[in-house]
Structure formats: C-alpha cells, structure tokens
C-alpha cells in the first residue's frame, strides 16, 4: 500500500498508515525525494505513529530519506515514534543520527516553522 504524501503549505507530510514492506519504503523514498522538488517544499514530515515495529531496513530508509531531502535543500522531521519502538531502535543501534525527531505532527510542524524563521 503506497504511503499518501500530503502537501501542507510549504511542507510535505508523509503519513504512514500501516506496516510497510521494503518495496513500499523504497517507493516512499522515491516519491518524497521527487515531490520535494516538484512542490518546492521547505520541509518534510514523516509520521510513523501507526508503526508498532520498525526493522533495521525501515530505520535505514528513514535516515536515507532525511539525508536525501537535505541534499534537495529541505529539512526532514520524523514524528510519532512509539516509546517501545524508540527503545528497540536504540538497542538495535539505529538511532537516526543527524535526523530531527519530534513527538507528533504538531510538534514537527512547530519545529519546521521555527527552523524557517531562523536566519540562514
């Protein structure tokens, strides 16, 4: 099932609704990286609230997305990681280093807004 990507002002919101296969993740990566240029977005939010488990491939893809988006000139925030997921991710050693995270969608938007106002 492909992940819907919504345009919200200057930002894109990719809201994951159910567990994703590896192919879905790759497809999500392609779509986000492409659309960020198409809509001239300044930020991307990936909402993973619905995920109860996250394997190493998913973690790596999220990190890759964040790095690719940066290369495209925008910011990425991962929001809604569940507490249990967070701890198992850390134990697996995938800490999404260098990637911004926020509690939920609202926080993610606030973070991007604040980032936008900062000079430079």
């Amino acid at each position: 099932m492909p992940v819907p990507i919504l345009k919200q002002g200057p930002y894109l919101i990719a809201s994951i609704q159910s567990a994703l296969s590896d192919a879905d993740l790759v497809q999500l990566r392609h779509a986000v990286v492409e659309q960020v240029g198409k809509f001239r977005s300044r930020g991307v939010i990936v909402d993973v609230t619905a995920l109860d488990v996250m394997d190493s491939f998913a973690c790596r893809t999220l990190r890759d997305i964040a790095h690719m988006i940066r290369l495209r000139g925008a910011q990425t925030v991962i929001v809604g990681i569940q507490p249990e997921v967070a701890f198992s991710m850390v134990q697996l050693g995938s800490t999404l280093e260098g990637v911004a995270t926020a509690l939920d969608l609202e926080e993610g938007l606030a973070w991007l807004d604040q980032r936008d106002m900062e000079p430079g």
Partner: protein
Amino acid sequence: MLLRELVAHLRENRTQLRQEWAQRIAEARLLTAMSNEEILAEATSVYDNYVEALETGTYEALQAYARNLSERIIPRGVETHEVVGIVLLLRDVLARSLFAKYQEDFAKLNRILDAYEPAANRIANTVAVGFVQERERVIREQQEAIRELSTPVLQVRERLLILPIIGVIDPLRARQLTEQLLRGIRTNRAKVVVIDITGVAAMDSHVANHLVQTVEASRLLGATVIVTGLSPEIAQTLVTIGVDLGKMNTVGDLQGGIEEAERLLGYRVTPNKEEKL
C-alpha cells in the same frame, strides 16, 4: 524402636532439659532481642516440636512451625546465627542427657546416637532453612515495594519533566526507569527531561550504556535529555570504562539542569522585586 525409647526419655525429662536449654541460650547471649519469659515460651514450643519431629520422622509440622516462628522473630531483629545457634544448642543439650543416661552401656549409647544424630541434624537443617527462606521472602517483598516507589517521573513545568534517580540501579530497574520515562514523555508531551543521578552512588558499564540508550530513545521521541548530578566517582568510572558520552548533555547539579532546561524551553525566571518574603 530406639527412637521411641529416646522420645520417651525426652518427654520424661522435658521440664529439666528445657530449663537447661534456656539457660544455655542465655549464657551464649543469643536471642538478646527477646525477654527471658519469651525465650522460655518459645523454647517450650520448639522443644515439643523437636520431640514430635523425632517421634514421627516427618518434618512438615516442624517446617510450618519454623516458618511461623521466623515470621514472628524476624521483625524483632533476630539473626540467622542466633536461630541456628539455639537449635544446635538444643541438639547438644539433648545429646549430653543421652550420654548421662546411657553412660553405663556404651554399645547402647552408640546405637541411640546413631538414631538420634541424623534426625537431629535434619531438624537443625529444617529450622535454619525455614528461617532463611522466610527472611528471603521478606527481602523480596521489600525489594518489590522499593522498586514501585522508586521511579517517579515528575512534571515541574509545562513540557519539562524531571526524573530523580536514587539508590542502586540494577538492569531490571534501569529498564523500568526507561519505560516509565518514555511513557511519561508521551503523556506529558515533554520537550526537555532532566535526569538527576545525584543519589546514585555507583554505576557499572551496563547501566551507563543503558543510560546512554535512554537518552537516545528520548531524542527519538523529540525530547532533549539533560543529565545532572554525576558524582566525581561516577564521572571517573564512566571515563575509565570508556562509555560514549558524546551524545549526553550534562550539567553539574539539578538546579543548573533545570535552569538549562528552562533556557531551552524559552522561559526566563526573574526575581520579583516588589514581593519579598
């Protein structure tokens, strides 16, 4: 058959042997937490249970009695060595009385002792094990209680949590702490968490790594963690064992930690000039 004779002898001389035993207990300065009357009363029931166990060869009743006795005397501060000591004293007193009774007939004395000793040892064992088990049960209960009390996650300001950790952190408690903290971050929508470990005396590499993992997991939930109150000892251990603290934000004490958190959250605390205490 020999045992029956033995039991009859112990029953016959009950009063005198019991007296002697109580006196030996007092001489050895055991059970100092109890009064003489109490010791005599307990000694009587221990004696009767002892003889009964010898007679029947079953230890269930004795076990139950030992548990019950332990339950009563543990809160009064009776130590393991005292309990073992009094049972061994009783064994000695009874053995002496057997020597006295059968001193004429050495062969018979030998056979009587053959019957008596294994049973007596087993009784001593039963009582001691019962006592230790009861003690361990009490300790387990207390540990449980401490664990439940020990990990409060407190909100001091909108979006600011503090987690004071006091005492020893074992792996089990560390896991529980992390779970509670991550859940607290979610429910309170916290942005900054101050973990204060002033009350932690020591930390091994396992717990230190767990702390680092907790910090990282909190970040994944969008919260910044500030660790405060690392004691000189802990600071030295952590650096010596080479824990990677690069990702940890540390401040000297809890006050500094809260001030730093307020700064991150955009609060400014200024003294109010008009109102003074």
